[in-house]
């Protein structure tokens, strides 16, 4: 086959590869063909007929969105015949379309509006009464039907382009939205009592070509043309999807996709999309606060700075800088991480700088090198076997997981979960190999032995069905592409060393890729730009040192150990011992409750900077809303002001200044001053050569009759941690906290589905509703989501690998 096909479009010649659709060939030479149902990322259906074009020697007009070019085609996109057909299509589409553009959210950014303006008849011949589908239920406005907690459907506006159903079904593999009835009566709908709220549901609203699908959080709030758009990067996981922060005055109204084909291909997950309102949470801090007479009160910025500087100066002058510690967060920007290292390392002269507040066992440098994606996000579409070890791709890296879903749907890839509870990638076929909680390493060692033909004995009861591993071993032997992936749960895994050791063994035997995807957006960046606390200097060490009295004060930047650390009581008790606790945070919460001084921290929508995503790509994000009335600042600006008062240098006025300094001081990142549109790839360490101490798997302890259940917990796609909790929209979607129990356990306890129970131990517990499902192991309880008012880390103990709980009726 020829590698190029030449065709003529509107008298202009163009050469394109075989298989190129006519609409794409036209795009290449700047000829725009109007369409509603076409999306280059979705299967073409050719339904709307708006893109009809005339091809010479063809008797009928053809759909340019569904027809590939053929050699020497002569195509006309603006002939009279085409124009007439377009007018006809538009007139058909509008016959029952309510002309409610003035109150429709899509107005201003509506393809139907635009195309009608450009190609449509100015008047309709339609003389019949318009059919109006009305929603008679009370709590809804106008004709909208609630599809889920966030998305509403207006059947009158819908033109049946099937984009939404293709997004849900073909892209996400979900089955919560469908087409019902037939012909002119067709509509988009859900199954009764099953909400449309899958991980990617918001994309249907963004790409709806009319105002049929709307978001509860956006509708009737503001017109599209009043919004300004800032090019930003999502900060709610390590994928780093590009997005537009759309804002007006001081408020963010929504997030919309900003297509980057290397990363997101224009899709957003609901966490990223609907987390837009984190910035306007009611607990947001806009001013500095100081503790007076045991209560926090607002104070002037100068006063707060003066108090902090005075404290710091005393210690610095006494050469007691090492009694001060600084803790950042994986959600800070590269510039902020760098600023913390420079200020606390060089000026305060302390080594106690870290960010690892989410897990009790800090990472050693060799393990740190293993964090991140091996390969590129775009490579996740490649064929092969993807083995997910205690990892939930839908939550850990939602948009990147779409690539794996695509590979599965094209039968290029298969996904295997080694997991203690059932996991899924929509309805795409996957294999779940269930192990008891914490026993993943046994499964991997066994798999390794099956590939090698060696012997490995797995203790009884740890793996549900070993034959699945036998089969997997066979498949691996026949595959030249295997990728082992773990995620957020890795960091808190009770037997992390053994797990890692087994993953590396498996990696070596089948030359697999090995990826450990961190939870936080800039884990990769902050560890490279200064926030990693080497052994003895990590957050856990800092807590020890506070307890032993050798650290007197702590500066916390953007993290929240009281919510994150897997032992709430211990953290709170420890932090209470501090002489001086400075909290730089976007929100008032359980941590600021303990603070001596509080500075308002800017969130990524408020300032500019850069993040490094899971594949080692540095991307810049720009500030959104004007916050001239508020005092939130990025960390480098706050520390820069300290420096200014202390006259120590290190004063930064702009994020680019920090990057210039990074480029100067860290040669590996010398081009960070020039971040291209698609991001700047910096090489991560090659994982092929990495050696890790071999650790044998360990059998988890058994539960006793007093505390008979092993406790697991997991965040969800809509609620990934304390930050997402600040989004009212996300909380409306995620909404619930559930304890999953096996049917046998529920029967034993006499608990019914939906019943509230107390899960805990003698000292403490949380009240939570039960979901009964065999997707969780017998003898284990899985808690979905943690909330500030019912935090799971209340039940956790930092020195206990496995947490045992009892279930009590309330």
């Amino acid at each position, binding site marked *: 086959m020829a590698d190029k096909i030449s065709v003529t479009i509107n008298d202009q010649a163009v050469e394109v590869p075989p298989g190129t659709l006519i609409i794409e060939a036209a795009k290449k030479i700047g000829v725009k063909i109007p369409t509603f149902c076409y999306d280059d990322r979705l299967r073409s259906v050719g339904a*709307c*007929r708006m893109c009809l074009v005339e091809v010479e020697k063809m008797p009928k007009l053809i759909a340019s969105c569904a027809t590939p070019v053929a050699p020497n085609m002569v195509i006309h996109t603006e002939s009279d015949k085409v124009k007439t*057909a377009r*007018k*006809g299509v538009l007139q*058909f589409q509008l016959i029952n379309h309510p002309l409610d553009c003035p109150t429709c959210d899509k107005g201003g950014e509506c393809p139907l509006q635009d195309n009608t303006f450009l190609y449509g008849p100015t008047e309709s011949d339609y003389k*019949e009464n318009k059919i109006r589908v009305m929603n008679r239920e009370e709590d809804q406005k106008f004709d909208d039907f609630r599809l889920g907690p966030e998305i509403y459907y207006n059947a009158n506006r819908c033109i049946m382009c*099937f984009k939404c159903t293709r997004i849900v079904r073909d892209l996400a593999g979900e089955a919560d939205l469908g087409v019902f009835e037939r*012909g002119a009566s067709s509509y988009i709908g859900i199954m009764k009592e099953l909400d449309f709220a899958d991980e990617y549901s918001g994309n249907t609203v963004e790409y709806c070509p009319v105002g049929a699908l709307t978001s509860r959080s956006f509708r009737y709030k503001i017109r599209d043309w009043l919004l300004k758009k800032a090019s930003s990067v999502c900060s709610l996981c390590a994928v780093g999807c590009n997005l537009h922060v759309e804002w007006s005055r001081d408020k963010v109204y929504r997030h919309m996709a900003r297509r980057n084909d290397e990363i997101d291909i224009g899709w957003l997950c609901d966490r990223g999309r609907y987390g837009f309102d984190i910035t306007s949470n009611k607990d947001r801090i806009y001013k500095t606060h100081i503790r007076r007479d045991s209560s926090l009160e607002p104070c002037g910025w100068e006063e707060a700075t003066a108090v902090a500087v005075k404290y710091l100066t005393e210690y610095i002058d006494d050469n007691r800088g090492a009694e001060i510690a600084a803790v950042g967060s994986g959600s800070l920007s590269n510039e902020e991480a760098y600023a913390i290292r420079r200020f606390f390392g060089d000026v305060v002269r302390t080594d106690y700088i870290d960010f690892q507040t989410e897990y009790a066992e800090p990472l050693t440098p060799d393990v740190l090198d293993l964090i991140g994606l091996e390969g590129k996000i775009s490579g996740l579409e490649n064929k092969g076997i993807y083995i997910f070890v205690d990892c939930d791709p839908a939550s850990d890296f939602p948009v990147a997981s779409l690539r794996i879903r695509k590979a599965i749907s094209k039968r290029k890839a298969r996904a295997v979960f080694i997991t203690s509870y059932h996991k899924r990638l929509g309805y795409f076929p996957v294999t779940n190999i269930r192990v008891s909680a914490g026993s993943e390493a046994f499964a991997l060692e066994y798999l390794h032995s099956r590939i090698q033909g060696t012997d490995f004995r797995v203790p009884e009861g740890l793996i549900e069905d070993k034959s699945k591993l036998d089969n997997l071993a066979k498949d691996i032997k026949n595959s030249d592409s295997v990728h082992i992936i773990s995620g957020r749960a890795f960091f808190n895994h009770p037997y992390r060393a053994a797990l890692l050791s087994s993953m590396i063994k498996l990696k070596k035997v089948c030359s697999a890729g090995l990826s450990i995807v961190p939870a936080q957006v800039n884990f990769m960046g902050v560890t490279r730009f200064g926030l990693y606390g080497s052994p003895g200097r990590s957050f856990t060490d800092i807590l020890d040192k506070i307890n032993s009295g050798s650290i007197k004060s702590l500066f916390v930047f953007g993290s929240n150990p009281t919510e994150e650390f897997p032992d709430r009581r211990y953290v709170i008790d420890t932090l209470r011992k501090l002489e001086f606790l400075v909290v730089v945070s976007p929100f008032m919460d359980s941590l600021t409750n303990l603070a001596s001084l509080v500075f308002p921290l800017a969130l990524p929508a408020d300032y500019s900077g850069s993040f490094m995503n899971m594949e080692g790509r540095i991307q810049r994000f720009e500030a959104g809303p004007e916050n001239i009335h508020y005092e939130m600042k990025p960390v480098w600006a706050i520390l820069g002001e300290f420096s200014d008062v202390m006259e120590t240098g290190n004063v930064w006025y702009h994020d680019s200044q920090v990057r210039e300094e990074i480029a100067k001081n860290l040669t590996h990142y010398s081009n960070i001053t020039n971040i291209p549109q698609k991001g700047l790839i910096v090489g991560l360490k090659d994982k092929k050569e990495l050696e890790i101490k071999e650790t044998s798997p360990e059998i988890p302890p058994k539960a006793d009759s007093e505390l008979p259940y092993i406790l697991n917990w997991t965040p969800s796609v809509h609620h990934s941690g304390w930050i997402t909790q600040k989004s009212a929209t996300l909380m409306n979607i995620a909404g619930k906290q559930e304890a999953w129990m096996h049917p046998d356990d529920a029967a034993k306890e006499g608990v019914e589905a939906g019943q509230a129970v107390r899960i805990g131990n003698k000292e403490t517990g949380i009240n939570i509703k039960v979901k009964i499902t065999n997707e969780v192991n017998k003898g284990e309880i899985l808690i979905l989501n943690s909330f500030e008012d019912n935090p799971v880390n209340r039940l956790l103990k930092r020195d206990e690998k496995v947490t045992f709980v009892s279930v009590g009726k309330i």
Partner: protein
Amino acid sequence: MAEYEKILFKNIDQPGQDRIETYLKNGGYKAFEKAVTNMTPEEVTEEVIKSGLRGRGGAGFPAGRKWSFLPKDSDKPVYLTVNADESEPGTFKDRELMEKDPHLVIEGTLITSYAIKCRTAFIYIRAEFTYAAKQLIRAIEEARAKGYIGKNILGRGIDIDIIVHRGGGAYICGEETALLTSLEGGRGHPRVKPPFPAISGLYGAPTIINNVETLANVPHIVNRGGEWYASIGTEKSTGTKIFCLSGHVNKPGNYELPMGIPLRELIYDYGGGILEDRNLKAVIPGGSSVPVLTADKIDVHLDYESLAEAGSMLGSAGVIVLDETVCMVKAALNMMRFYKHESCGQCTPCHQGTYWLLRILDRIEHGRGTMEDLDELIHICDNIDGNTICPLGDAATPGVRSTLQHFREEYEYHIEHKKCMVSMAPRFV
């Protein structure tokens, strides 16, 4: 009345013809045995090409040529799908074949499977044909017991299985790509062509879709040769055709006659003339999707070419006869109600266009029409025709167009007098 040799219907009224014993006694499965023992698949295809057999579902595409479009070097399985979703208003021939002579359909399916190297054939039968489906399933089990279906058939190392798949009640699934979507478990939405099913059909694999009647001809062609078959009928429309005669005739029913016989012969000789000796008003010669012919076309010959010349189409050969008492507006409305009901909902011009046409026709019928409506009807038809994925859109408009063209005065009468110009004689007594 001229007598013609029956081919498909030769044994149809023989008692027990639906049982394999009788079928075998009457020479059944001889063609299949001949094909697999004495002919290569290519020779079978060649014979069918030679016969000039054209698809009996409506489109009239040469069957053998269709088979020859299959890719020669595909590593995917080839599927045969028998289109038994007979739903074109006025058509009821496949049903009779399947109910009374199911083995003939099975044998045609087996020979075709052999010719196209298909190992799994599907018979997609419309949901309402419960009895026909039962007959087919039983016939398949009988044939399986005799070794005509299954593994290593007749010891020739050929495997063929036939699955009877029941539809769900949707006219659109008679369209070949909608049929495939439906067979794959989806809503019956037609697909854009290309790719044609012969290249990428069922499960993305090369697929041949043939109508029941088409396949029923194949055993006879294999038995008696393509040349013999081509000698029947006209030059371009070869063989016999089952004409489904319905409406205002004395003897409605299926008549197998050579292609090209005059319409007059069918209606007056075979159909026994018009009920109560009334005058003929119009004939729809190829199922409700083709244009109406006026009574003066009574001498047209029933083959693809002659009917096209007369301004209509042979379609599925569902010949619907309308006598002088029929209100053509009402008839057009009846047909449009059908197409609006059956539009799948995919293409804008079809689902909105049929809906709009129906509303206007309904208004005219009920005395609320205007003269402008008549132009609007044509305008809407113009905007539908040729602009949809599948032919349903194009099939919905001929009824309106041709009645407006030939019987405009009835529409105008409706608009002016707010009632029908003629009223139909009661038939249900």
